[in-house]
């Protein structure tokens, strides 16, 4: 396993549940609605993670279970049907409805698959109803996207032609850019999943090669494989090197001439490295501690170490899928400390002990660490920002340089902590 030593830790965790993925998924597919079947806690989680709501009516909501729903399950299924019918009447533009399972719905065993099936019969194809779990007892943070995408895979049409399929939510601009680069090197049939319209599902088949854009799509990758697709193994497209290797994997699979590949990427790489340089100077030698949350921790640590010279103190990850992370793990420095799972108190003890220059962590932990004089970066910011690809490498580095830079700017005298 590359240069990392793995420890497993159990204890109190401080990680979002899979429901959180809805925050970016609903923006990617504007014709889809995400209906959580859960409690007031679930509703409160999503709105808190989404922050200020600037839209009139969001395309996500919660069917909040009440006392009387806990008693009779049969009624609960009908009741949910009623909620959905009302919702769809109000929002006729919705084409796909995701019923999202939560801890309460799973503990009382509401059968969302059955409810979805019944609704699909009723709706006669006008709206497609799907279900997946975003519950905190089954999933963490980004795993929600894995569940949603997996639920869509059976509806992807078949095809028999060569195709490159990019899997995982990307910012639209980044997606366009990556596709353009693949086109330039002669890979013309490139599709993305999830699509920008939920009804516009890309096809898949035995001649589909899949490049994963995100490291948390284990189950989606598995079912795509079942549909005959080949999952290309590569590091994830973060940083110049990671993105280069990632594109290289596609070029190889499509037998693209090295000279063509070089002619497309060389100037971009050169430019990106130049843009990266000032941040590298600031970040080199700085100590980085990543708390587990988004599953992006390993690729980020790899990028910040190899391309920005940061010293990695500890990489936390909510769970480790070795197969998925194989290429990444090999690029980590010798003796990297990799911790799977979490005991948040012990982990924070280690943070205090090691006094890193920067900690990547969840929103709940950031200000308390800042108050102790430790700079932080919110991990959730990384799933919202356009960070993928060679062109974005310097923007990605800038996200980490900013808190350090800020600390340099602010008067030291004012910042002394008691």
């Amino acid at each position, binding site marked *: 396993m590359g240069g990392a030593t793995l420890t497993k830790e159990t204890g109190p965790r*401080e990680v979002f549940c899979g429901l959180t993925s809805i925050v970016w998924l609903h923006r990617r597919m504007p014709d889809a609605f995400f*209906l959580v079947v859960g409690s007031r806690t679930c509703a*409160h989680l999503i709105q808190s993670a989404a922050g*200020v*709501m600037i839209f009139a009516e969001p395309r996500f909501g919660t069917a909040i279970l009440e006392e009387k729903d806990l008693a009779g399950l049969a009624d609960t299924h009908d009741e*949910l049907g009623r909620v959905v019918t009302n919702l769809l009447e109000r929002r006729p533009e919705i084409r796909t409805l995701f019923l999202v399972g939560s801890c309460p719905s799973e503990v009382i065993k509401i059968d969302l698959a059955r409810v979805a099936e019944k609704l699909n019969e009723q709706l006669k194809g006008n709206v497609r109803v799907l279900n997946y779990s975003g519950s*905190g007892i089954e999933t963490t943070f980004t795993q929600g996207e894995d569940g949603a995408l997996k639920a869509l895979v059976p509806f992807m049409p078949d095809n028999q032609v060569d195709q490159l399929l990019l899997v995982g939510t990307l910012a639209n601009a980044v997606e366009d850019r990556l596709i353009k680069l693949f086109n330039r090197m002669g890979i013309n049939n490139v599709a993305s999943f999830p699509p920008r319209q939920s009804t516009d599902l890309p096809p898949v088949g035995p001649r589909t090669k899949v490049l994963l854009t995100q490291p948390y799509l284990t189950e989606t990758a598995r079912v795509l494989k079942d549909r005959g697709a080949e999952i290309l193994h590569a590091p994830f497209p973060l940083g110049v090197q990671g993105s280069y290797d990632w594109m290289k994997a596609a070029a190889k699979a499509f037998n693209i001439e090295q000279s063509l590949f070089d002619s497309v990427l060389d100037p971009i790489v050169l430019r990106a490295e130049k843009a990266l340089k000032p941040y590298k100077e600031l970040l080199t030698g700085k100590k980085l501690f990543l708390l587990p949350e988004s599953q992006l921790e390993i690729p980020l640590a790899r990028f910040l170490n190899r391309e920005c010279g940061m010293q990695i103190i500890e990489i936390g990850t909510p769970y480790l899928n070795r197969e998925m992370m194989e290429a990444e793990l090999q690029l980590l420095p010798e003796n990297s400390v990799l911790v799977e799972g979490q005991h948040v108190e012990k982990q924070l003890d280690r943070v205090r002990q090691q006094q890193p220059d920067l900690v990547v962590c*969840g929103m709940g932990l950031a200000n*308390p660490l800042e108050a102790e004089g430790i700079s932080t970066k919110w991990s959730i910011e990384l799933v919202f920002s356009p960070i993928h690809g060679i062109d974005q490498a310097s923007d990605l580095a800038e996200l980490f340089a900013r808190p350090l830079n800020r600390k340099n700017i602010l008067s030291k005298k004012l910042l002394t902590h008691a």
Partner: protein
Amino acid sequence: MELTLWTYEGPPHVGAMRIAASMEGVHYVLHAPQGDTYADLLFTMIERRGKRPPVTYTTFQARDLGGDTAELVKGHIREAVERFKPQALLVGESCTAELIQDQPGSLAAGMGLSMPIVNLELPAYSKKENWGASETFYQLTRGLLNNQKPVQITHDPQKWKTEGRRPSVNLLGPSLLGFRCRDDVLEIKKLLIENDIDVNVVAPLNASPKDILEIPKADINILLYPEIAESSCIWLERNFGIPFTKTVPIGIGATHTFLSEAHNLLGLPAYNQSKNANQSRLKWYSESVDSNYLTGKRVFIFGDGSHAIAAAKIAKEELGFEVVGIGTYSREMARAVRSAAKELGLEALITNDYLEVEAAIADAVPELVLGTQMERHSAKRLGIPCAVISTPMHVQDVPARYSPQMGWEGANVIFDSWVHPLMMGLEEHLINMFRHDFEFVDGHQSHLGHLTNSQGENQAEKSQLSNEAKNNISDESPVWTSEGKAELSKIPFFVRGKIRQKTEKYARQAGCRQIDSETLYEAKAHFKA
């Protein structure tokens, strides 16, 4: 089952967290799955706290459910106690754990721990955040004070007179994630000290369990936030005989009433209102001539019960507004808000659905909205000025500066923060009116952004055109002569637009093709007559 797109209140265990996080020396072990840890960010982000809430989440997973979750709970309790050494331990569960029925409170009670344990049973499927906060504070107070209960109630709120000391009171209810509690406490303390009243305990904010034990030493309780502390005050009255004040001192009138109430309960010389008439600047600011334009401004009010009721009173009696709508998301306060509404000749809106609130606002066509952070968004969409008066709030509603709502200074703050958006609204109106005038500097933006500027005006112009087209199909628009234009430019800018419109209307009616200064004066006389 209720479809919720956004909720004003979190679940009841978040209310419990507010009490735990407000206090010192209290720890809360919450049997809950990992996602529920999001609640920490409410404190560290919205309140900008530099401390994590004192909460240990058991973060059980599906794979734990087959095994011994009770052992898991006990393990977490043991560890939390060892690490945080709390003076009192709260134990409870969130919505999911409630379904598993591990009864963590009973488990904790059987562990032989030395500190007091409060077993919190907060029904997650029927109750909400404020109820949870209130219940937690009540359970904690009761749990700590139960064995201090006198057999016979002998409490005399005027006993300070015979003990050679000043009267003393407790301030009950301020908590984290409440609206401006930090500053309200300072303001009320100041107010009481000026009235020769000492403050004994403030709780839950910054109180420790030891402080709670001191509560019975005060002469009376001041109920600052009924949402949080009413049940505790009632319990303290019933079991210790400590009376409490019922008026929430928000606004000048309420502050007077509150002081008079406290004076009476404590047996102080009667409160002298006229001596304190000018303590707040709100009174004079409201009386001053430039406040004339506030008269009859239509306001719509929505928030928690206490703040909504207080706002309605201030709006009507202290600022001369017209209240055109009032409501609350708080079921517990529904009755009180309904009767406040009735006094205003309105029907209260009791709902947890922000879209219903938005529709009611649109319906009432107010000139100012006083609401929560959600009404700020709704009002923005509707192009109506808004001030936030109640939780739930956004990080921007937790200002760095001193900005209480209560007491004299609170009234000052309220004057500024309600009138300012209205002035901005007026400015907005003027910008729209004069954006074509040469004095208008392009790029001038009001706080409401682009929305109302171009769109609003274009729409107004369009509808005006179509109306006119209907009325005078064959009519051409009259032309201003340069002499007429010069005369028009002498008219004060804030009525110029209106006069231009009216003059053109008159000219069309009178069949004038050209407008000169004479037409202008004829039009003026015509519309006056």
